[in-house]
């Protein structure tokens, strides 16, 4: 029995008419309609309406509308595609730009990281390639002794052992592992009688240490390293580092110094910048572990006492160093031959020429006011500084280098060129000791700048030495030098005269054998 009745069919009439019922309901409804005349008639009428409506022909839209729509659709799609392609192009163009920018930023970051100091003070090796290093004491009140020839090149890291003697076999390895950065410390001192009279008892202020190589990151590191060294006590009572006759603002090539152009300054490798004197060569020694120097003052006293006993000088000269330890001299020679002084690996400017350095140094020597040393702020030790054994090793090495340098200091004291020339004239007047003449002229030759500024003195010196030369070739060479100087002087006089509107003086500087007799007479005003 079907549950569908007329009422239910009336409710579901639309669904039944349009067959939106499920199959079961449709069957039930159909069964009821077939059995119910009323519902069947009702459904019949609605179906008749539907059939009538279905006979309505479907009107066809005009093709023009369709064509317009298709055209519009194509245009719109083209615009949309152009927008998408533009976005794609922008993305394509922007991608490499963004990538390049990112790469540039990354490169800068990496470069900054690479330039950051990675060497700690304890790892910095200091190479001393200058002349004998002065003790950190006061400057003398009298002219210093002539500077010795040759240069001592020391490298803190390379010199190992208790005696401070470098072991050649270990130098290279140490340098590879630790001495990444080396600078040059130029220690100078002004020691001249007139200057000393004007600036008496400058003390340690006369010592001036300059760190030459303009190394970027290493410079700072070198300065920090040097700054750890406590300044020596300044005052007239201290020993005189009388070997820095020519202060220099710039570093001089070690090779040039070794070649004979002694400028009276020394370079300390491994650091750069404005350091200070007083144990600069011990820069590698950390401040906390820096051993006190109880023997410093007695050594200074000994220097003064010995200098006072020296009849040649009016002032004290550095005391001779303690007895050299075994193997010190050979090791030092080997270091020099190997170029043991360490050039900075990163140099932003070429080192000045020898003449420039001497010029600047000489002018500073003549005119520079007393240098007051400012205590450098001590930097805390790096977190990864050297360990205790390494520090002890470095300390012992540095102490050995100090003693070694002082030994050479005593032998190669610096004397001003004026004093050298004065001694030369005095010697000539007192019997002309050819040996002493040879030695004095040789020392004068090292003063390049002074020799250029005092051609008469140098000409006389060459003439004096030429007379003393036993070898004809050497004698001729000295005579030739004297002639050259005379010619240059005459030429310069002519130039000056032409500039001044005057006729060049016709005085002849002809060199003859009798010129040597005029040398003392010309040297006297030159000395004044």
């Amino acid at each position: 029995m079907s549950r569908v009745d007329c009422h239910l069919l009336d409710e579901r009439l639309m669904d039944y008419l349009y067959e939106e019922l499920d199959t079961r309901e449709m069957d039930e409804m159909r069964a009821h309609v077939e059995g119910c005349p009323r519902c069947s008639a009702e459904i019949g009428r609605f179906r008749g309406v539907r059939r009538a409506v279905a006979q309505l022909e479907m009107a066809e839209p005009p093709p023009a509308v369709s064509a317009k729509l298709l055209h519009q659709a194509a245009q719109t799609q083209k615009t949309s595609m152009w927008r998408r392609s533009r976005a794609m192009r922008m993305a394509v163009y922007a991608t490499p730009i963004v990538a390049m920018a990112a790469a540039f930023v990354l490169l800068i970051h990496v470069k900054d990281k690479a330039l950051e100091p990675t060497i700690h003070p304890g790892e910095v090796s200091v190479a001393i390639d200058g002349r004998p290093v002065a003790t950190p004491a006061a400057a003398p009140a009298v002219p210093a002794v002539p500077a010795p020839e040759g240069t001592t090149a020391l490298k803190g890291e390379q010199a190992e052992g208790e005696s401070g003697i470098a072991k050649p076999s270990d130098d290279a390895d140490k340098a590879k592992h630790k001495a990444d950065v080396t600078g040059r410390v130029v220690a100078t001192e002004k020691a001249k009688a007139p200057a000393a009279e004007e600036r008496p008892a400058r003390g340690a202020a006369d010592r001036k240490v300059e760190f030459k190589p303009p190394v970027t990151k290493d410079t700072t590191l070198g300065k920090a390293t040097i700054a750890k060294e406590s300044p020596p006590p300044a005052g007239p009572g201290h020993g005189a580092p009388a070997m820095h006759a020519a202060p220099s603002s710039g570093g001089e090539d070690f090779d040039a110094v070794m070649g004979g152009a002694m400028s009276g300054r020394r370079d300390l490798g491994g650091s750069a910048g404005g350091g200070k004197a007083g144990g600069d060569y011990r820069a590698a020694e950390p401040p906390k572990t820096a051993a006190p120097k109880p023997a410093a003052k007695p050594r200074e006293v000994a220097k003064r006492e010995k200098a006072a006993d020296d009849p040649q000088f009016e002032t004290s000269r550095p005391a001779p160093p303690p007895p050299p330890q075994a193997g010190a001299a050979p090791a030092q020679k080997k270091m020099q031959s190997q170029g043991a002084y360490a050039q900075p690996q990163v140099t932003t400017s070429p080192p000045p020429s020898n003449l420039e350095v001497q010029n600047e140094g000489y002018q500073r020597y003549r005119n520079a006011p007393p240098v007051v040393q400012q205590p450098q702020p001590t930097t805390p030790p790096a977190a990864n500084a050297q360990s205790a054994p390494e520090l002890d090793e470095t300390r012992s090495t540095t102490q050995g280098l100090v003693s070694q340098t002082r030994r050479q200091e005593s032998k190669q004291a610096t004397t001003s060129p004026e004093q050298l020339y004065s001694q030369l004239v005095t010697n000539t007047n007192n019997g002309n000791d050819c040996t002493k003449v040879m030695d004095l002229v040789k020392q004068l030759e090292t003063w390049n700048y002074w020799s250029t500024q005092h051609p008469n003195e140098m000409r006389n010196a060459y003439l004096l030495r030429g007379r003393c030369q036993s070898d004809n070739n050497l004698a001729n060479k000295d005579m030739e030098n004297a002639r050259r100087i005379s010619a240059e002087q005459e030429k310069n006089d002519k130039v000056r005269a032409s500039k001044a509107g005057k006729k060049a003086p016709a005085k002849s500087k002809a060199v003859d054998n009798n010129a040597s007799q005029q040398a003392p007479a010309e040297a006297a005003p030159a000395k004044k």
Partner: protein
Amino acid sequence: VLTNETDEALMARYQRGDVRAFEVLLARHRKPVYNFILRFVGSREQAEDLLQETFLRVIKGADSYQREAKFTTWLYTIARNQCVDLSRRMKLRRMSSLDAPGHAGDEEGATLMDAVADGGASVDRRAGDSELQTRLKAAIETLSEEQREVFLMREFLQMQFKEIAEVTGVPENTVKSRMRYALEKLRDLLEDYRELARAAP
């Protein structure tokens, strides 16, 4: 190949730039939509304009179309809204008062719609039972807007009541009621063609 795809797939292709997909969609739906609009507004010119406007909206709104939605529902909604807007603008209700049917059986008793109708009506009339066609058109015009739209959607667009309810925004039962009233009114209007109804099985 495109003719076998669904409306949603074709619309997706058109969104990717395939104009041929839109061409298929247009060919598939332009006739029912046009007839729906034509029966709704009664004017061929207005029907053409509304048809063009409806598909233009489809073109412009293609980017915003989501495939989850049924394309026909979206399309018919646009068409219906166009018709309703036009009806409101033209005050078709007031105009419909002039659509008083003529005398029954009077050849000249065409409605006002027939008088202002385009040649399409004449073609319909010539093609089939011209009197029936005229009566049917007049009867449809007499339906209220709510009934007419439901009737047209169901008869011309073959939409189910559920979809009609979704497009019109009224409950489904309301749609069915409107549909029933529309059919009853048409039945009454076509009483003269009772024999036609009797012929129905």
